[in-house]
């Protein structure tokens, strides 16, 4: 419990830091950000949009602390203003659709790479010096060296453009509208193969290598010898004794990689025009849609914080030492 409280405190500080950063950045810019923004838009801006920008930044005539409080108040009410690029859609509407796709893609690809990577790690450690143990570490390390988005580009080119096995872009076929039907789900799955696949290929090696190095240590422990001496079946020693203990460092890593994946995924979403938060973030930056951009940055941060907290809950459940301390 103490551990959870400590972690929660940390996440609150992180959330506050992100909020404040969002508030301070436009103000730290030289000159008046709203005016410079308006001049950058070269007159293609409506008066109500100017008001929207001012509101999004919390630029009122009061002193700084008052602006800060107004800004916090607006954020807590989920009021991020109106998007400039897709005027007059509310920023919060864009976020709620984007968030779904980002979390779906992120969680699916992370889970696959986590499960596959750990199983591979257990397997190659169990057969130390075997064929898989000689080939896989080098191969997957090399795969892991590719930038996420580059591998995504190459896969898009090969499997979608040249071979036509998978669709080129978007999260589901354009003619469908979101519904809980088999055709729709099928379409979503087919559209997810390449983006998720590229993330898995790059990240699976890391899980495997960590698992391998922890497993090597765990396997030399006495309780493994004991389990073997008792004549327990190999599979049981492998999973219930060795893997169960060796997986802990990877679980800690899991929360952290959610952040990395959500970040790296931003580029993947770009490549596949996948309608997640990252895709919208880049779009917002390119169209200089500040209110959308700020809200998206906050949302991605919050998603990572919540995900980390869930992992913490899981960790407490798995490691009794944390529960006690």
């Amino acid at each position: 419990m103490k551990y959870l409280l400590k972690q929660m405190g940390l996440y609150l500080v992180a959330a506050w830091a992100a909020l404040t950063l969002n508030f301070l950045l436009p103000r730290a810019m030289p000159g008046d950000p709203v005016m410079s923004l308006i001049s950058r838009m070269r007159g293609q801006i409506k008066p109500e949009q100017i008001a929207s920008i001012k509101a999004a930044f919390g630029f009122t005539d009061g002193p700084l602390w008052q602006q800060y409080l107004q800004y916090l108040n607006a954020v807590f009410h989920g009021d991020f203003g109106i998007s400039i690029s897709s005027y007059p859609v509310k920023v919060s509407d864009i976020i709620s659709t984007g968030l779904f796709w980002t979390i779906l893609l992120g969680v699916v690809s992370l889970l696959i790479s986590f499960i596959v990577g750990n199983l591979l790690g257990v397997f190659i450690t169990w057969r130390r010096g075997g064929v898989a143990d000689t080939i896989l570490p080098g191969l997957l390390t090399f795969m892991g060296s590719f930038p996420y988005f580059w591998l995504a580009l190459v896969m898009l080119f090969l499997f979608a453009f040249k071979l036509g096995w998978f669709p080129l872009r978007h999260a589901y076929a354009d003619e469908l509208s979101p519904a809980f039907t088999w055709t729709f789900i099928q379409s979503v799955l087919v559209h997810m193969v390449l983006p998720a696949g590229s993330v898995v290929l790059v990240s699976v090696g890391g899980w495997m290598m960590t698992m391998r190095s922890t497993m090597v240590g765990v396997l030399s422990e006495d309780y493994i010898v004991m389990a073997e001496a008792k004549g327990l079946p190999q599979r049981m020693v492998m999973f219930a004794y060795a893997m169960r203990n060796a997986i802990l460092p990877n679980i800690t890593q899991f929360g952290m990689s959610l952040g990395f994946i959500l970040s790296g995924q931003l580029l993947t979403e770009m490549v596949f025009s996948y309608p997640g938060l990252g895709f919208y973030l880049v779009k917002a930056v390119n169209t200089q849609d500040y209110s959308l951009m700020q809200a998206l940055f906050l949302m991605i941060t919050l998603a990572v914080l919540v995900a980390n907290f869930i992992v913490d809950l899981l960790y407490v459940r798995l490691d009794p030492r944390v529960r006690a301390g």
Partner: protein
Amino acid sequence: MNIPQISVTEAQTPEVRSKIRRAPRLAQFDWFTRMLRDPKAVIGLVILAIFLLMAVFAPVIAPKDPNRIVGRANQAPTAKFIFGTTGQGKDVFAQMVWGARLSLGTGFLTGALITLLSLALGMTAGYFRGWVDGVLSTATNVFLIIPGLPLLITLAMYLPPGAMTIIIVLSVTGWAWGARVFRAQTLTLREKDFVSAAVVSGESTFNIIFREILPNMTSLVVSSFFGSVIYAIGADAGLAFLGFENVSIVSWGTMLFWAGNNSALLTGAWWTILPPGLCIALVAFATTMLIYSLDEVTNPRLRSEKEIDSVLKRFHIRSRRSTPVLRHERGG
């Protein structure tokens, strides 16, 4: 220096014994000479050296300006343009060679800055402990948790574009991982006898940190530096690909930006996409190999595994699961 003596009797081969008998060198740099005997490290060093030479001798390898339009756009690789031309009719090979300068320059400079920053913050937290540690650790954890690329994009948006901006932004967002490692290591080293001895003999804090503790983390610093270089090169390429850098300067990232901009995929111009990506991947791979090798050389458990591996190979013992127990000859 403590040399682990292997308690398995088969391990007493001439090879191992000669290692034990050899006079100890400067322990701090021992890892370096050991690394040079490791094929992983050699592969890594050779690949890195090739790319560094390519960057340094770019004017010799590809004497013409990489931004010059040399011929028809989107030409497939031919004898004249061995990597083909871009969507704007520029020579891909020349761009790749010249691009190494900015990409590697940004990568290594940022790597160095990140390492310095994380060393300063991590060691301060680890050495002074107390409230200093509390504040710095919280900051470290916050930076670890805030997703990097969105923050990078947001920062890059507000600051004036340019290579220096990218280097600074990458350093500010990338120090946390290293700081955590250095803090932990400083906390451990601080409890060691040699530090206590230095404290008792009245050494200044500055001397203790930089002459007693820091030299004992050399390999960790090097490994963290390489890790930061990988991070910087990747993040730099990502930002450039999105168009958040000065895209008129040639780098591997901006090559990918232009490839995307000229819809290289749809025109089938794969030769504009492969070279920069492969360059980034090779550099990252080489650097990862160096880190693995460094880890193997400095981690006693992994090191002894390697030694035992070679012994087992000598006796044609194929499979083996656990690491044999090692004992120190004398007390630790």
